[in-house]
């Protein structure tokens, strides 16, 4: 597979930085919501919306689009931010997050914003719906793919593994599950709350193909996502190892940022840090 040209990589890294800024701006405007997960998945959503997905922001219900499902609905700010920058709606609309009448509900609602594909928030539910969509594509002999973004902690839910079993039975190699492996959940470390390891081996034993990468390394992410497109008669999981709160130094690695937004002062500091990082990325180009 050809490596990504350096200038394209830089473009995507700069875009991911802007997506992070959008997350911080929307969270502080909302006054509630989750911070750590959205920030650590900014690289993956940027890779998907700006490089990997077959989609058209001006025609969000295009029949042959790839389907991107966010199973862990609580990290919605990253999806909303990436969608805004990709052209689905104005970036300023991010400031309506979680407010009355908004299309950007606290947890995603498809009926209000159809390009979300599903309504999500209750954990462990996305892979099941994605499996249904991937199966429909196979039945109709369509070549679009289904991407399901999941949190690591939602792998504690039984339904997720029902879906993993069904997807393998039907050889859904058009189904790609991406795990935000940040090791945190509301009550602490995933390995303290309810151990998930060996997570990759669990998938192997369920007859999935397993890829692993650094989920905050744009080049590595793109490599894995491109490789996943060519399934070997099996569904693929990408274990994306991420650093919670990535890009905002005072949040990085601290599970207490899982479920709260920054204050105004904290947001200003975060935005200043991200703006400085943006300048460094662009200067490097």
């Amino acid at each position, binding site marked *: 597979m050809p490596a990504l040209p350096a200038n394209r990589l830089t473009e995507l890294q700069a875009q991911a930085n802007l997506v992070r800024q959008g997350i911080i701006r929307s969270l502080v405007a909302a006054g509630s919501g989750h911070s750590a997960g959205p920030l650590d998945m900014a690289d993956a959503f940027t890779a998907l919306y700006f490089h990997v997905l077959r989609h058209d922001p001006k025609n969000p219900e295009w029949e042959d689009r790839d389907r991107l499902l966010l199973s862990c609905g609580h990290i919605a700010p990253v999806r909303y931010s990436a969608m805004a920058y990709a052209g689905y709606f104005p970036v300023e609309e991010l400031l309506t997050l979680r407010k009355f009448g908004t299309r950007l509900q606290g947890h995603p*609602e*498809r*009926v209000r914003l159809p390009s979300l*594909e*599903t*309504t*999500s*928030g*209750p954990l462990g*539910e996305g892979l*099941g*719906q*994605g*499996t*249904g*969509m*991937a*199966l*429909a*594509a196979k*039945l*109709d002999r369509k070549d679009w793919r289904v991407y399901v973004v999941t949190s690591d902690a939602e792998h504690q839910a*039984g*339904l997720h593994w*029902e*879906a993993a*079993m*069904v997807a393998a*039975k*039907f050889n859904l190699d058009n189904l790609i599950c991406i795990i935000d492996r940040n090791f945190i959940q509301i009550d602490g470390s995933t390995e303290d709350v309810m151990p998930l390891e060996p997570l990759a081996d669990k998938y192997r034993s369920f007859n999935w193909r397993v890829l692993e990468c650094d989920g905050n390394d744009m080049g590595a992410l793109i490599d894995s996502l491109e490789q996943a497109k060519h399934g070997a008669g099996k569904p693929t999981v990408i274990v994306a190892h991420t650093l919670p709160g990535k890009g905002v130094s005072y949040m990085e690695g601290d599970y207490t940022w899982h479920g709260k937004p920054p204050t105004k002062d904290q947001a200003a500091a975060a935005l200043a840090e991200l703006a400085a990082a943006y300048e460094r990325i662009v200067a490097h180009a």
Partner: protein
Amino acid sequence: MLETGNDRAAAAMHLVDYREATSLKQVPTRNGFGEGLVEAGKANPNVLAICADLAESTRMKAFADALPQQYLEIGVHEQMLVAMAAGLASVGKVPFIASYAMFCPGRAWEQVRTTMALNETNVKIAGAHAGVSVGPDGATHQAIEDIAIMRPIPHMLVVVPCDAPQTKKATLAVAERWGPTYLRFGREKSAVITTEDTPFEIGVAQTFRDGDDVAIVACGILVYNALAAAEELARDGIVCRVVNNHTIKPMDEVTILAAARECGAIVTVEEHQVAGGMGSRVAEIVAARHPVPIEFIGVHDQFGQSGDPAELIEYYGMGTSAIVAAVRRAFERKARTA
């Protein structure tokens, strides 16, 4: 057929003569589902049947044999049944998913609410083995709370047909109609009272017997018991209207309010907990618009148990004699309040 003039309502509805109990055909309502599903699948290739290891007892087997390319077996995965069907529906499929009502919707309620209803997907749940008439399997397998958990969910259609032919018609009707749906039916053989010519329209309750002393509003296989009770009461001069109230949601408020106004007393009859069931909805409508005395036939805050189906129906107070007694109570309350 009943003779016109003897009972105009029954004639208009093309009912069989239900007064001759021994001559009635006995067919499980689930058989009607199985037959209807095959027809629906042949008419529309987007109709899929998905089963969770109960193909024979939910009567999906015939569909699996006739239309194997539209049939999916996913094993003991009731939550997945709903989530996966929602995914399939979002790409234009019309998935029918079947299990025992206790497990789907019972086990999968949150998936039903989020992925089917809030997400507005065209999934059809077929809940088999509802009610205590499941019999020997016992309380774990007797769903008597399922209407109560489905009724409050926005967008949900809830249909409980009265016999096998009507279950077939209901299956075909819900396949044609867009929207998240719960279709409920039973395991045991039950009396066939409707015919090919009996009309069926979702949301339109049917008057199976005329009368204005007390209205018996029933659903499911107990509609037959309601008719039998009305027949018995007629001999004592109490003339009951019998309404087959097959659509629990959205309920036919016009027919219910007409029953309240014209009869002045109502007895509701269902094989379900009284709490939150069909009768509860009737009471909401009547209390808000035209209050009259109501008596409720159903299970009163108990679980079922193993036993012979008919024996269980009697034990839990849903037999013909219990309905007769409830009508007498309602009739007396009406006389006192007049």
